């Protein structure tokens, strides 16, 4: 285009922000490098001690174990499918650990690490993927919502829940046990859904206490993030009038620090924030996916160097913050968790075929009760045949 005309509309945003860069670009907030070195950032700092870092290490190891174990269970036919989080442990543990009990989480189908942080029994997660239920943990117990499969839908639920929080006066009171933030998790692909953009609008207009936590794992199944946006996704928030930041999603310290600050902003009544955790889906989209069809193995190799767990391990070891005993004990815990999951999964009971009729409504209808009875009688007829 003629430069004059272009100039009239201000700088070219694609040039300003640049195309997606493999290292996340200059705006990436990082506190722990892939080499395990802690660095400073002018705006965000990690304010917990090294015990906490060890805790994060343990959390990430256990989360990865849940993931690999579930993947194996799928291979053995015990699960129908599994959505792997491999590579996203830091994003999930960092953000999950920044939550307070009263905060509320709206996850996608991949937030196993966040679920773990909230205290949801991992076996409960398997039920959905095994097909015995649809994720039947009680969201009221841990303030961890049910997995939402229709991408983006839960971001509106989060905005609405946050509007409820506002109406309950649980924002900006200064009481750390009362002020409440809501977190909506979603992916780079989901960011294109109308619902997600509408949730930005509802949250912004109401100044609702929501943190939009976007795990940009570079892929929406086979589509690279360039199919969703031509500028970095954290910039999306600018268009809606609230801040957006990009954090190194493989850096658990930075994820913690940034999420904590965003949550605090929400709880204090300063409204929504978009946190883009720049990370990588090291596994397949799900166990039925075959990433070799659409991405280069070099890409993966490159990201392996940025493994979120490895860098914490290096940091702990190099600085003598944890001894072999610590690492061994974590490994033992992982082993134990693996056994629990394997045994537990196989023992998960199938639902009864009749149960579905009772779960549709809070107040059962005559119509459906009759359908249930008819089906029960039909099934009974086989049994009596069998007996006869």
């Amino acid at each position, binding site marked *: 285009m003629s430069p004059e005309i272009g100039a009239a509309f201000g700088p070219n945003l694609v040039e300003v922000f640049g195309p997606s860069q493999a290292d996340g670009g200059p705006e990436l907030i990082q506190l722990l490098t892939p080499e395990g070195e802690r660095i400073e950032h002018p705006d965000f700092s990690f304010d917990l001690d090294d015990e906490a870092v060890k805790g994060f290490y343990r959390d990430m190891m256990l989360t990865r174990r849940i993931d690999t174990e579930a993947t194996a269970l799928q291979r053995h036919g015990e699960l129908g499918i599994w959505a792997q989080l491999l590579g996203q442990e830091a994003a999930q543990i960092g953000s999950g650990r920044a939550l307070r009990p009263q905060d509320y989480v709206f996850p996608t189908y991949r937030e196993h690490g966040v679920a773990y942080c909230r205290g949801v029994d991992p076996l409960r997660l398997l039920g959905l993927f095994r097909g015995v239920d649809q994720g039947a943990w009680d969201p009221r117990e841990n303030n961890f919502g049910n997995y939402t499969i229709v991408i983006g839908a839960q971001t509106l639920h989060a905005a609405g829940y946050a509007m409820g929080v506002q109406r309950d006066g649980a924002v900006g009171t200064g009481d750390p046990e009362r002020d409440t933030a809501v977190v909506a998790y979603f992916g780079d692909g989901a960011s294109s859904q109308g619902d997600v953009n509408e*949730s930005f609008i509802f949250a912004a207009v109401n100044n609702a206490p929501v943190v939009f936590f976007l795990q940009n794992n570079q892929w929406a199944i086979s589509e690279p993030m360039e199919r969703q946006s031509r500028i970095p996704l954290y910039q999306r928030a600018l268009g809606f009038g609230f801040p957006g930041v990009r954090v190194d999603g493989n850096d658990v310290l930075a994820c913690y620090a940034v999420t904590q600050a965003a949550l605090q902003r929400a709880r204090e009544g300063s409204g929504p924030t978009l946190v883009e955790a720049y990370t990588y889906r090291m596994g397949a989209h799900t166990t039925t996916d075959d990433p070799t069809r659409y991405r280069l193995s070099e890409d993966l190799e490159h990201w392996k160097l940025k493994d979120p767990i490895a860098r914490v391990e290096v940091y702990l070891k190099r600085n003598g913050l944890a001894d072999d005993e610590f690492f061994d004990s974590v490994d033992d815990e992982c082993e134990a968790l693996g056994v629990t999951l394997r045994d537990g999964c196989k023992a998960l009971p199938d639902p009864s075929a009749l149960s579905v009729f009772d779960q549709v409504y809070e107040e059962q209808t005559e119509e459906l009760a009759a359908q249930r009875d008819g089906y029960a009688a039909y099934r009974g007829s086989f049994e009596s045949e069998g007996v006869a």
Partner: protein
Amino acid sequence: MAGTMNKMTLAKALNAGLRKAMEGDPKVLLMGEDVGKLGGVFRITDGLQKDFGEDRVIDTPLAESGIIGTAVGLAMRGYRPVCEIQFDGFVYPAYDQIVSQVAKIHFRTQGKVKMPIVIRIPFGGGIGAVEHHSESPEAQFAHTPGLKVVTCSNPVDGYWMIQQAIASDDPVIFLEPKRQYHADKADIDETADASSIQPLFTSRVVRPGADVTLLAYGPMVKTCLKAAEAAATEGRSIEVIDLRTLSPLDMGPVFESVRRTGRVVVAHEAHTNLGMGSEIAARISEQCFYSLESPVLRVGGFDTPYPPSRIEEEWLPDLDRVLDAIDRTFEF
């Protein structure tokens, strides 16, 4: 107490019912486009924002998916949102949130999360409007398990049914026949005991008769009552049933009636193909097989998009078409 009787249009009755529900439960919220100062384009929420504040009567951004999606979140936080969709034709941007979220969350969570949401939709035609303002989307919602779907045909039902819908712990699609909003007035006793009111998910015989059973709901009830009157002058006794609830259907009174009359006509504005009439016909044919003297005949909107308003009265089922169908049931 006769002294507490108030003459109200359907619009006023709904307004009064909403007010009553909001007074009775601080968790009840209204939300939608223009429901605040304007009181909604049909004034159903007139004065409520003034009295209950902007936190309880919420003018939302113009995004229907956003309205329903945030209502889901509010319901999870313990609120009871009553969402207004401005016109029937504008419910579709919210369709995903309604059928995949509102309808399924109770089931998904095995009942751990309730969805006490009411989605109010002015529906039906006959008001001379442009495209998308005269749709009858009920069958699509009735086909969706997890939703309950009701519609009122008169001010008294409007007043009570909206309160019952709000009190329901299941999501209710509440269809309001917009053509009736200001059509007639009826006496409403606002002090009546709610427990004495007919339950929400029930149909009602609104005119007894012996020769033909005529089924209708919402905007068509009035037309059908008139048809019954006209038929009476020709010596035919028509029993009219106001279905009131479309999902679940309350077929008990219908079957009872059909077993007496042997003839049925079902009328609605929605497209005939896969409209409520198809399900009703299928059920009656199955349950009253030996009682039927004639097949169930359907009088519905044609299977074309809603027409330009200058010909809408010819497109909509009317008294003549209902009478014609009644006549035809005697041809078998």
